[in-house]
């Protein structure tokens, strides 16, 4: 009997003590610790970031540890929000461009202007205004726009040649590098070889924000510049969507929903994506070129993707975090990061500088695509309450992705859904 009680008591005690026993504190090292949320699990990325962090720690003995916490990309914003909800906001975090208005507008982030401009050698004015636009509110900068990456077209020259089509370079030289010709070529490729024509990479008929890379050629945006009115039912949008719909379901120029293929595996003629994907091209499996997005009916344009690094006010050490951010984004480190994440600094946005860190790309490719793209590009549309609006649009647009869709009805239906949310 005694043994019964003793054993049970032991088990219970173990249980009660367990929480204290396992709390091997992370801040065991001397000095304070900083935590930055990122979505990359890429070992090279992390090695680079850790290298910069080590250099910073060497100079700043008050910093004990700097950790980079990888949160899966799929649930990135969600998980970040859960951490914040739980009162465990990281000190710094990468923020997706789509979530920018929510984060900037919420007041959760620390204004960075004072720290950055007062850091010696930082050259705050060097940051490109077009790159920082998304991250400003009331004249203050709430996140540092790192990884400002333009969208461009990768072309598989082998496939195009095999289908007897002109190369993009020829088309550009001939002045006919526009969506109409691209669509025609792509359709021809698909018809002749069965390979895919143009892929809008990562657009799985869900993340419609990637369609901006096409829509902008028609000057079509889902909502007005002030974000208050839905413009999905505008005539520009109708034209852009009609183009896409025809290219997908009639011409076969764009792979339809649920068709898989991979440009980098050699299945596709053209791929719209960010230039950093160049790292996936290896071993000369096929001949390729990188060219700017083709012109649309409303002229030429470019689109950039972005992420920002923000400092959370509610983090444990906001000021120290901001100081670290200043170091991380200093001209010197910005250059190091440029091999993966194109910098927002005007002084570094030239083919020469970028060429050093992007050996795969030629000088003219960098000039035409990257430098021009970043300086003139617009970011994808975003909005406060982005997730809910994006979800409503996605659900509405689902009806558009069938061969016999009634596009005008779909688009006006989408506006009926998000109109109230935008006006809110």
């Amino acid at each position, binding site marked *: 009997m005694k043994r019964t*009680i003793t054993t049970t008591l032991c088990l*219970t005690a173990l249980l009660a003590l367990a929480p204290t026993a396992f709390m091997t504190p992370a801040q065991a090292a001397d000095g304070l610790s900083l935590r930055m949320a990122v979505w990359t699990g890429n070992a090279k990325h992390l090695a680079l970031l850790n290298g910069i962090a080590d250099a910073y720690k060497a100079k700043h003995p008050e910093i004990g540890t700097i950790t980079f916490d990888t949160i899966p990309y799929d649930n990135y914003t969600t998980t970040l929000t859960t951490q914040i909800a739980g009162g465990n906001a990281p000190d710094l975090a990468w923020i997706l461009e789509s979530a920018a208005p929510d984060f900037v507008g919420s*007041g959760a982030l620390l204004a960075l202007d004072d720290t950055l401009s007062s850091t010696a050698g930082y050259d705050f004015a060097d940051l490109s205004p077009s790159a920082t636009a998304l991250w400003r509110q009331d004249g203050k900068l709430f996140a540092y726009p790192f990884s400002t990456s333009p969208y461009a077209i990768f072309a598989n020259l082998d496939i195009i040649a095999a289908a007897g089509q002109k190369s993009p370079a020829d088309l550009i030289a001939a002045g006919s590098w526009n969506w109409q010709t691209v669509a025609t070529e792509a359709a021809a490729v698909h018809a002749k070889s069965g390979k895919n024509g143009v892929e809008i990479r990562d657009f799985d008929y869900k993340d419609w924000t990637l369609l901006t890379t096409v829509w902008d050629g028609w000057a079509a945006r889902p909502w007005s510049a002030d974000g208050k009115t839905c413009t999905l039912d505008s005539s520009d949008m109708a034209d852009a969507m009609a183009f896409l719909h025809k290219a997908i379901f009639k011409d076969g120029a764009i792979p*339809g929903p*649920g068709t898989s293929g991979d440009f980098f595996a050699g299945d596709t003629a053209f791929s719209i994506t960010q230039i950093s994907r160049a790292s996936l091209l290896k071993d000369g499996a096929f001949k390729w070129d990188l060219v700017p997005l083709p012109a649309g009916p409303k002229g030429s344009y470019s689109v950039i993707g972005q992420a920002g690094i923000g400092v959370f006010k509610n983090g444990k050490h906001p000021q120290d975090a901001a100081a670290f951010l200043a170091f991380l984004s200093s001209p010197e480190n910005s250059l190091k990061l440029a091999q993966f994440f194109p910098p927002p600094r005007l002084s570094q946005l030239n083919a020469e500088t970028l060429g050093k860190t992007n050996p795969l790309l030629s000088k003219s490719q960098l000039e035409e695509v990257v430098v021009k793209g970043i300086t003139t590009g617009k970011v994808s549309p975003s909005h406060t309450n982005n997730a*809910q609006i994006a979800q409503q649009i996605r659900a509405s647009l689902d009806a558009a992705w069938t061969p016999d869709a009634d596009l005008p009805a779909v688009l006006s239906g989408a506006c009926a859904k998000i109109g109230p949310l935008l006006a809110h």
Partner: protein
Amino acid sequence: MAQDHPLPSISPDVRRSWWTPARRDHFIGYLFILPQITGLVVFVLVPLALMAWYSLNEWNVLAGTFSFVGLGNYEKLATDPALPGVLWASACFSVGLVLFNLSLALLLAVLLNQKLAGTVVFRTIFFSPVVVSLVAWAIVWRFLLQQDGGINAVLRMLSIDGPNWLRGPNTAMVSVIVVQVVKNVGLNMVLFLAALQNVPQELYEAARVDGASRWTQFFRITVPLISPTVLLTSIITVAGSLQVFAQIAVLTEGGPGTSTTVLVYYLYQQAFQFHFFGYGASLAMLLLLIVGALTYLQWSLRKAWVYDND
């Protein structure tokens, strides 16, 4: 024979104290359940109470504001134009899943219960998806269900032009149900198989003598005798069907449109994606109510259709 074994000496007249054997037994009972109950209180009851409290508040996570709104979230719940569709999708999903799961499980169990050589191999195959990681399973099926995926490739061999399974509202729902059923039907199959093997063989012999057909035997003998198992598995399957999340997240993200947005997924969207924690909490309360009500219903209706040995 042997001498007496020494016994602990007890005074002949033990007075009846408060600490009776019965009380001591109670105490041991409490000790035994203490870890589990403590866990349930700490990890279930307290969080539930917190969720109930959140549902009475408006909570903006990013801005860090938290304010009491009384029944505001419940008013929103009552007037949410999306909710009827979500509940309908949940109902379709659960009904489809439970019917398909239980009937397939029963079919497989009956097949395996025939005394055929090699059924162990089939049993192993039917059960194997249960042990495959859910995320991997869903990822693979997403591939197979594509327009040019494996399913349609097979159909094309039979000269059938398959639909784009995950893009049509009805086919998406059917696909999600089928994927989920194939993954988990092995569990119910095994439980049914065990129940079938417990049905006394003489009953079938008696029924054959009485001239009952195989169908009559199945519906008049087998089904009633395994009905307690059917009840328990259906309770667990119904409760489980209302909690399905990862599969929907990987396969359809609630689409196309909102056709596969079931309640749990909607809750997840509202709370974690749109940051409406308060509203999400009220949806959680609704979910709890539905699960509880359904379970109670099944349990109280059991007398009507479950054969009871006792």
